[in-house]
């Protein structure tokens, strides 16, 4: 049974079809890459999955529950975590409080299992290699550090499905490795990851499967190596197969 199921998702805004009949499943523990050119609807699809946009048609099922009409905070409490393209951390808060605010928002049952708040905050900051900055305001961090903090925070807050929107954007090559390591750790813990990324080698390295989106439609889906070699991907990204 898939953990996430998208059935015929359509979204029309002011007469423009942003998403058109998007359907695919994601199995538990799978890491799926969502790729496509700019404006293909990837982030919009994430906004639909997180509940910030309501689809005009179709349904979203998470762990067999229809969550199409649930508000974002309810989805998060069910276990849908999101890492934003433009750093979803709170810059005016300290790193500690950034983690604490996420842990406090967890459902009570999960919070009871996690140990003391202080221990978990510490463990999260250690995971992001930011423990020495605990009392600093998050706005003083570099882009890569913000990204690590955000991913570690989402991971520790008991989420089951991770929606990562370009986690390596604005991140140094060294930090990109750290991000890949954290996603690897998620995979080992059988967490499910849906990741938007433009870095195709990165996608090929970490994903089990790739879904290609273009003008709001799924045009291709398969294993990273197959997708990489396909003519459709070349057409989507470059307008035509460069070998012809």
């Amino acid at each position, binding site marked *: 049974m898939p953990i996430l199921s998208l059935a015929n998702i359509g979204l029309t805004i002011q007469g423009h079809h942003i998403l058109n009949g998007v359907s695919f499943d994601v199995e538990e523990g799978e890491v799926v890459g969502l790729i496509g050119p700019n404006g293909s609807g990837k*982030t919009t699809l994430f*906004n639909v999955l*997180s*509940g*910030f946009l309501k689809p005009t048609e179709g349904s979203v099922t998470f762990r067999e529950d229809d969550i199409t009409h649930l*508000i*974002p*905070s309810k989805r*998060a*409490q069910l276990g849908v*975590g*999101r890492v*934003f*393209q*433009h750093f*979803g*951390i*709170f*810059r*005016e*808060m300290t790193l500690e*409080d950034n983690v*604490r*605010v*996420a842990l*406090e*928002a*967890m*459902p009570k049952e999960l919070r009871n299992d996690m140990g003391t708040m202080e221990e978990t905050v510490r463990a999260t900051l250690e995971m992001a290699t930011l423990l020495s900055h605990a009392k600093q305001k998050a706005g003083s961090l570099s882009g890569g550090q913000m990204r690590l903090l955000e991913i570690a925070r989402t991971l520790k*807050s008991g989420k089951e499905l991770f929606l990562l929107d370009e986690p390596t954007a604005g991140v140094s090559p060294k930090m990109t490795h750290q991000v890949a390591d954290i996603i690897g750790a998620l995979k080992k813990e059988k967490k499910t990851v849906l990741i938007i990324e433009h870095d195709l080698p990165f996608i090929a390295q970490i994903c089990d499967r790739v879904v290609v989106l273009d003008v709001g439609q799924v045009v291709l889906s398969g294993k990273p190596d197959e997708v990489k070699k396909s003519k459709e991907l070349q057409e989507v990204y470059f307008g035509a197969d460069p070998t012809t």
Partner: protein
Amino acid sequence: MDFLLHIIIMACLTLFPLLGYNIVFGKGKILHFGQEAQSLMAVYTLWVLVVQFQQPFLLALLASLLTTTMLSLLLAQLSFRLEPDGFGVMSIALHLAVLSIILNWQSVTRGALGIPRIPRGILPSSLERYALVVVLGAIAWYFFLRRLERSSFGRNLVALSEHEWHAESLGISRKKVHTIAFLLAGTGSMISAILFPPYIFLLSPLDYNFQHMIFFVMCAVAGGPGSLRGVTLAIFLIIFLREGLRFMGLPADILGPVQIMSFGLILFVAVCVRRDTLFPKQRTV
């Protein structure tokens, strides 16, 4: 000495609704300009029932609590349904509507004349003791809010004010947190409704007009939106200035405009100084 006590009492009485307002406007960064509507609802329900209809104080207090809570919930609901600027305008409209009803429902409220002979009841009659009660109440309110600010509620409110989507994606319920914020603002108005009219023995609608709302905004902005300590300090300084102007020997017809002009100047400078931190920077998702 009496003048100093008077300033302390006035500052503390202002502190109740203003620190409550600071939770919504300063900490939550919600464009709310209807705090005086909450105050009007609280104070008129309470004292109209006690003075005009001779109802027992506790019953009137309960009714006042009920109407203020209902208005706070209405404001919270409106803030969820409207865009921030739309809500700002709507909250002003709501304040003016409540004020207009009070001014025109003369058989009950006595209109612009207000309600005189507000009894002090169990509150002390001497200035010193009144000051003591008010100061102790203000200290308790300050520390209660400080505790809330450092709790998960405070963190959630700040997270929502920084970026609503980011906060909601963590599981923070905007409706729950903002409803609590509006209820706290209403509580501040309630406490002031109990203590302020008995102090001056009069309930006047002029003490709750839009100019007073501007005064609240000015104190919140000048003190640093969301800062309990800063706003408290601003309240004391600005009230000292306001009350102090009365002793400068200015003719009565000049005093009012001078007060308004000096408040305008303070607000202008405060907004200029704090323009970067007044409202959250818009960030894309």
